[in-house]
């Protein structure tokens, strides 16, 4: 997500098309969406649907997506925590890895124990490079239909595709049986405490059995061939529904008929994930961050650690002992909100890190942020200072998630 700095009312540029549309009643479709590279932005199957529901469209990772609709950002965020919200996440890359050697392929690229995934179980994992840097974060699910279902970030689409396809070619030349296919479905996230109840009305499967990080194929509101995964990016219970593109608008409209459901865009998506302590690739983790520095050691599979057989293992595993030069931590503060790129200092005023994400938390009555600090300052409760517009604000290292998560773990 962009941080607006340097230009006065830069946010205005971003939203003026939308604001103008709201004021004049003119649909924002009259403006041809362009990315900063002047290539036309990609549209998801729900593009027209967003516009007709008052979506303010903005460029994001090469796609035209709604940043919010008619409700304010705060209203949308809070509605998700109290009821449920529908997000279009079709920009993310969905792929299918199949063939006898699919697990071998996936394990050659990621840090997790993929072979140990139970049927229909998924996990968050990381593609790493030879220096142990994170190429992307993604979810891999071991489907009971003989393929791995992979969902990765839109902003990393090209490099992830190249990474996976090169590995497919390499393994095939070595005589392996493996292949990759892009799934051109829409992806709709329904997130919030009433999401499961809303969805249950349209599926025959008992969703009480679909626990956090499990997945199943099912007919959804009469649409065959949908994959429903109990996961999301908000910290709430919820699902992501992979639906054939030509049925996406129909599904969104049916879901919206339930008065529990409201539409939510990128703005709410970002403040929700930040409250949940979830990383945004590109902001909080990148190719210069290892899983240990990123406080994501839990993604490293037990077997993989012992075997040291994931890319960059020789650098990453030793980091688990000893002090780190930089470590991702959560911070909370009151006063002026802390934003990306602000410097972090110790109480003596020496710079010891930088903020990577931050916003005022709509739920918590304070500011929340993530950043990297010298490992010696990473203990919960450590008092620090953050520079905000040339003033130093007090902040404290805090546990994440900032808002308790409510994943459906069936206990």
């Amino acid at each position: 997500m962009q941080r607006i700095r340097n230009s006065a009312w830069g946010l205005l540029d971003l939203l003026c098309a939308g604001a103008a549309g709201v004021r004049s009643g003119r649909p924002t479709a009259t403006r041809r969406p362009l990315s900063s590279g002047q290539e036309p932005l990609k549209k998801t199957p729900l593009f027209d649907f967003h516009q007709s529901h008052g979506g303010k469209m903005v460029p994001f990772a090469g796609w035209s997506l709604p940043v919010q609709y008619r409700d304010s950002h705060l209203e949308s965020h809070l509605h998700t925590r109290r009821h449920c919200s529908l997000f279009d996440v079709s920009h993310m890359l969905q792929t299918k890895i199949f063939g006898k050697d699919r697990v071998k392929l996936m394990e050659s690229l990621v840090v997790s124990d993929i072979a140990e995934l139970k049927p229909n179980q998924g996990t968050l994992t990381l593609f790493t490079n030879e220096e142990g840097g994170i190429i992307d974060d993604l979810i891999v699910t071991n489907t009971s239909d003989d393929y791995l279902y992979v969902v990765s970030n839109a902003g990393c689409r090209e490099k992830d595709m190249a990474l996976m396809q090169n590995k497919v070619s390499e393994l095939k030349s070595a005589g392996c049986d493996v292949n990759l296919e892009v799934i051109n479905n829409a992806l709709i996230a329904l997130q919030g405490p009433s999401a499961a109840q809303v969805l249950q009305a349209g599926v025959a499967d008992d969703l009480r059995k679909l626990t956090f990080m499990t997945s199943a194929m099912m007919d959804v509101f009469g649409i065959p061939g949908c994959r429903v995964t109990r996961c999301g990016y908000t910290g709430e219970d919820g699902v992501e529904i992979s639906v054939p593109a030509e049925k996406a608008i129909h599904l969104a409209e049916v879901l919206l008929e339930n008065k529990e459901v409201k539409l939510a865009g990128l703005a709410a998506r970002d403040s929700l994930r930040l409250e949940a302590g979830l990383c945004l690739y590109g902001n909080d983790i990148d190719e210069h961050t290892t899983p240990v520095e990123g406080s994501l050691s839990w993604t490293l599979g037990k077997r993989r650690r012992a075997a040291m057989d994931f890319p960059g293992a020789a650098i990453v595993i030793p980091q688990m002992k000893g002090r780190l030069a930089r470590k991702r931590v959560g911070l909370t503060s009151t006063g002026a909100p802390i934003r990306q790129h602000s410097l972090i200092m110790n109480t003596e005023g020496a710079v010891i890190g930088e903020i990577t994400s931050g916003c005022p938390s709509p739920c918590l009555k304070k500011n929340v942020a993530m950043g990297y600090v010298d490992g010696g300052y990473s203990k919960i409760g450590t008092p620090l200072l953050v520079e905000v517009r040339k003033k130093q604000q007090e902040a404290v290292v805090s546990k994440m998630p900032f808002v308790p998560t409510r994943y459906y773990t069936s206990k």
Partner: protein
Amino acid sequence: MALRAARSVRVTASSLWAAVATETPGSLASLPAAPARIRVRLGPGSLPFPRAGASRGLCTSALRFAVRKFTDKHEWISTENGIGTVGISNFAQEALGDVVYCSLPEVGTKLNKQDEFGALESVKAASELYSPLTGEVTEINVALAEDPGLVNKSCYEDGWLIKMTLSNPSELDELMSEDAYERYIKSIED
């Protein structure tokens, strides 16, 4: 790194959530009819009568009119007895979204035209504020500490930001009239 002596208004924890608690009804500011308290002394560039069709909450009573000039950074300033009141425009508050925190200067701060004097924070981003004129801050709107959403609800009245002296009143001539500002907004939209 030395701590700056100047501090912005400390906002108590409760103030961030005024916007949440009051559940601002929507992004369009509805402007209440203001009491007939403002007398504007006619100065260069100001207008002696209510603008026809001016729908921004200007009361149509002949005794009450507020002359407002605008900057290209979407601030407005209106003057009375040599004191200017500064705020942001309706167009700006709409684009900004719910304001959750106001960072304002201390009384006594001297500002040059276009100096940055603070920021308005939404959940998503911070937008800096730039002084329309050269002068000294005489008052800040302390109501914003408890209710930053006033900037959205009443951007031309209760959501005013600062008051300041005018060291150089002719600078007002360099600012846009309301009509010129309306045309300016249209040119951005297209």
